[in-house]
């Protein structure tokens, strides 16, 4: 008599598909967080200290992107960038969308943290003869980074969760891979739970990393 394979057997069969999806999710999230953070730091610095004409384009960028659902952003990158003449893959379009999203959030986090530093800190730096950039590097940013860390961890986990939206434009990340496996096995609950667990693992790792850094740089 035919016995349908157990979930563990199906999981074993699907291991390559899921592993590839897991890797794609981690990879696209990591790219978006890395470049989004870099963009966000630059944008945040300009929003805080730049002159009006420098601030204006970044303010537009931040407001526009933050006021748009990530989903819409991902679709826009997928359909609009090729229409504008930039031929990119679905994966690249998704990565660009997530990066822009991450950058706009980090920009506001950085601006908030810098503005929370008392004015006297910059003045004290100037009073001992530091230039603005030296004050920024040795006095302001080290203090701002401590402020930024908890919120940055939060934003990063949001990026990982938002990466599932790439399934809609056909990027075989973890969610789409899971759906493909389900389409074959009909083990809906089991595989969605498993995918949920894997996303949790990614985000929990980010949180642990954040907590570790926070502890390392904590002031007595």
């Amino acid at each position, binding site marked *: 008599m035919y016995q349908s394979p157990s979930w563990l057997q199906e999981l074993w069969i699907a291991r390559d598909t899921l592993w590839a999806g897991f890797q794609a999710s981690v990879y696209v999230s990591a790219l978006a967080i890395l470049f989004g953070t870099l963009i966000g730091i630059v944008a945040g610095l300009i929003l805080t200290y730049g002159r009006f004409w420098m601030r204006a384009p970044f303010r537009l960028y931040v407001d526009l992107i933050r006021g748009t659902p990530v989903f819409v952003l991902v679709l826009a990158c997928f359909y609009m960038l090729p229409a504008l003449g930039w031929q990119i893959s679905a994966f690249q379009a998704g990565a660009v969308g997530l990066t822009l999203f991450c950058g706009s959030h980090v920009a506001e986090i950085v601006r908030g943290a810098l503005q929370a530093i008392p004015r*006297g800190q910059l*003045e004290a730096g100037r*009073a*001992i*003869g*530091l230039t603005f950039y030296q004050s920024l590097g040795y006095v302001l940013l*080290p*203090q701002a980074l*401590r402020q930024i860390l908890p919120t940055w961890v939060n934003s990063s986990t949001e990026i990982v969760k938002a990466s599932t939206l790439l399934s809609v434009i056909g990027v075989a990340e973890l969610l789409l891979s899971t759906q493909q496996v389900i389409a074959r096995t009909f083990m809906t609950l089991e595989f969605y739970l498993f995918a949920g667990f894997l996303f949790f693992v990614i985000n929990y790792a980010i949180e642990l990393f954040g907590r570790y850094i926070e502890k390392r740089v904590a*002031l007595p």
Partner: protein
Amino acid sequence: MNQPQTTQPLLDIRGLHKHYGALEVLKGVDLSLQRGNVVTLIGSSGSGKTTLLRCVNLLEEFQGGQITLEGESIGYSEASGKRVRHPERMIARHRAMTGMAFQQFNLFPHLTALQNVTLGLLKVKKMPRDEAVALAEKWLDRVGLLERRNHFPGQLSGGQQQRVAIARAIAMNPSLMLFDEVTSALDPELVGEVLSVIKGLAEEGMTMLLVTHEMRFAYEVSDKIVFMNQGRIEEQGSAKDVFERPQSPRLAEFLKNIRF
């Protein structure tokens, strides 16, 4: 003509004007300090004394007049009749010529006491690390905090923080020290330790410009007391003259409301 040889003043302020929008804060201030002078600015709040102090190291911009420190024009230069702000690097160099201690200490909270003092030595003076540490330790010792050198500001009392802040400023070997109400934020029992550090520096011949509400202290250390009122210098003179024989009615009124 047998004019006495006048030495060039260390700090020379001429016709200083400063306004925030329509509000005129300094309405033409002239003041000069010779090397080794201790000059104290007194006056009610809003009289412009802190602003004057902050103009000297350009924490405030000023719109008119000239400040000269050791013969160098601070902040602006005249080029073909136009007033041009010095480049940032030059301003940073001029700021390093003066040391400043703030009312709120403004120590860097992420650095230890020692690192607070060495930061300027390493990054501005480009001193080798061991030299900077030795010098910083010398000054921390001088303000009585050598054994606290590895403490962070958050682990120090207000008086201790202010002493570290003074060490941080003095270690840069400035030709002029500015003290901006350095004891105003301190608990009364911590004021003495800070004032005694400043007094020690005065006795060693450090040139100082102070803003303080500690009148007894001002009386004891100052070569000259300057009374400011509504953006102008109303009266100046020796501590004895100013405190005991005030000429202007406003100064007399001000002193009446002050407890010694």
